[in-house]
C-alpha cells in the first residue's frame, strides 16, 4: 500500500524540523504506523529513504519501542495498566472483567476486529488509577460500570 501524499508531506515536515534528519526517526515511524496501522517492511523502506539510512537500521530502532507495532491490531487497542498504583486499586479484577466482556484473553483480538486487549506498563496516570488507554485516549478512575459505558461508546462510534 503506497503512502498518501499527506503522509509524504508530513514526513518532509518532520525531517526539516531537526538539525540532523535522523532525529526524525520516531515521528516518521509514527506517521507510517498511523497510515498503515502497524509497521511493515515498506514502512521501514519509506522511512529509511527519507532519513538516508537502511531499512534494517530503521527496523532495529523500531524494535526498541513498544508503541511501534509490528503486527496489526483491532480498530481499538485497549491497553490496561497493571503497574503498582493501578494494581493497588483493582487493575487485576478490571482486567479480568474486560476479558469476560470481550470474550478474549490479553493479547487477542475480537473476531469482529474491533478490540485488541493488552496490558501495558505505567501510563503515568497513577493518581487517577485504575487507568487504561484506548488508542490515543486515556480513561481514568475505571470501574466496571465505566468499562461497560466505554465499550458501548466505542461500539456505537465504530458503527458510526
Amino acid at each position, binding site marked *: 500500500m503506497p503512502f498518501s501524499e499527506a503522509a509524504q508531506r508530513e514526513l518532509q515536515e518532520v525531517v526539516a524540523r*531537526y538539525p540532523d534528519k535522523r*532525529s526524525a526517526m520516531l515521528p516518521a515511524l509514527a506517521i507510517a504506523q498511523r497510515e498503515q496501522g502497524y509497521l511493515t517492511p515498506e514502512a521501514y523502506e519509506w522511512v529509511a529513504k527519507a532519513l538516508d539510512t537502511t531499512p534494517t537500521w530503521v527496523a532495529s*530502532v523500531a524494535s526498541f519501542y513498544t*508503541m511501534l507495532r509490528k503486527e496489526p491490531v483491532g480498530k481499538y487497542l485497549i491497553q490496561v495498566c497493571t503497574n*503498582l498504583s493501578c494494581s*493497588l486499586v483493582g487493575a487485576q479484577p478490571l*482486567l479480568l472483567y474486560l476479558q469476560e466482556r470481550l470474550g478474549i484473553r490479553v493479547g487477542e483480538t475480537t473476531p469482529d476486529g474491533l478490540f485488541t486487549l493488552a496490558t501495558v506498563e*505505567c*501510563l*503515568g496516570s497513577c493518581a487517577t488509577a485504575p487507568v487504561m488507554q484506548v488508542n490515543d485516549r486515556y480513561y481514568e478512575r475505571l470501574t466496571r460500570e465505566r468499562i461497560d459505558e466505554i465499550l458501548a461508546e466505542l461500539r456505537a462510534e465504530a458503527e458510526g
Partner: protein
Amino acid sequence: MAEKYLLRNIGLPDSHRIETYLAQGGYRSFARVLKEMKPAELIDLVKRSGLRGRGGAGFPAGMKWSFVPKDSYPRYLVCNADEGEPGTCKDRVLMEGDPHAVIEGVAIACYAIEAHLGFIYVRGEFTLSAERLEAAIAEAKAHGYLGQNILGSGYDLEIVVHRGAGAYICGEETALLTSLEGERGNPRLKPPFPATEGLYRKPTVINNVETLANLPLIIERGPEWYTSMGTEKSPGVKLFALSGQVKRPGVYELPLGTPLRTLIEEYGGGTLDDRPIKAIIPGGSSSPMLPASALDVTLDYEAIAAAGSMLGSGAVIVITEGTCIVSVARRLVEFYAHEDCGQCVPGREGIAWMATILERIEAGHGRESDLDLLLDICDGLSGRSLCPLGDAAVGPVRSSIKHFRDEYLAHIRTGQCVAPTVVRIA
C-alpha cells in the same frame, strides 16, 4: 491547604490557552529576563534560589547550567517530559493544564545557557500533553514570545516537541538523547556528561518539566521568596503525586519539608477503608519502601535520605495491610526487567533473575536461600550497571526484604501468602 504556585492556573477555564496565561501575568518573567538580565546573571539568580532538579536526582538546577563549557556552541536545552517512573504523574498535569508555564520555563532556561533550539521530549503515550504543548508553542510564536528577535531583544529561539514511542529508559538523560538522535534508546556511559557532550555531541542541558515550570515564578518573585519556603537545603515547593490505597489520590503542591503524614492524612484523606499502612514508597517505584513508622518523616531530600530512601520524583505510593509485599516487589521488578535496555550484563541478567526468583517465591516455590541470593544480585547491580536503572530495580527488593523479611520467610515456608489479601497485584 498550602498556597498553590505551580498549580496556580490549573482549573482555570481554558488554562491551556495563552490568553489565560497572559491574564495571569504569564511571559512577564521571560520578557524581563530578555530585557534586564545577562545569561550569567540569570544563572546566578537561579543558583541563589536553591532550585533542585525535580525529575528525581535533585541536582541544583543553576549549577547544572553552569557546567556548560564556555565558547562551545551550539548548545541545546532538552526538557525531559518522558514521565514514566511508576507512581509519577505530576509533569502531565502541568503539560496538559498549564503548557505555557512549561514553555516559558523552557524559554528562560534556553536563554540562560544561550541555546537557540530547545526540545521537549514527551513520552509517546501523552498525546494530549504533546498536543497542548504544540498548540502553546504556536500561540507563543504568534504573540512574539518565540521565533526571531523575540520582543526586540535580538534573541532567537525555536522549541520542538519530540514524542517518544514507549520506552521507560528514555527518561534516563543519556538514553533520552540517544533516542532523540533517532536511535534505540540506549543509555551512554558518563563521562562525558551531557553538559559538555550531549545532543549531537554538543553541550546540552536536560531539565525536568517541573524544574522548568518553577523558573517563571522564581524570576517573578525572586530567589529569596523561593528560599523562604521549604527547608534550608531543600527550598521551595514540590509537586507530590499521591497514589495507591488512599481515599483521595492526586497531585498536590506542598512546600518541601511537609510531613509525609500531612500529605497522606490531610490531603489524601487517609487510607482506603481506614486500613493500617503497611509500607510507603516515597519517591517513585525505585525509591526504597519505608515502613508505616516513617509517617512522621518530612518530605525533603535530606530527611527522606536519612530515613533510608529518596525523595526522587515526589511520587508517594501508599500500600496498606492486606497487600502481599512479595507481589509488590515482584511487580516492580518485572517492570524494570521489561524496561531494561539489554546493554549491560548486570541490568540484563540481574534484573531478569530477580524477577524470576520473586515470581517463584510468590508462586510458593521459593527457597530460604533465595533471600540471600536476591541480596547478592542487588550487590552486583547497585552502582555496577551502565545506567541508574540497575539501582532503580534494587530499591524495592532490598527494602522489602529489610522491612518484611518475616513475610518473605513465611511465604517460602508455607508456600503461600500469609497476609490476608484484600487486593491482588496483577
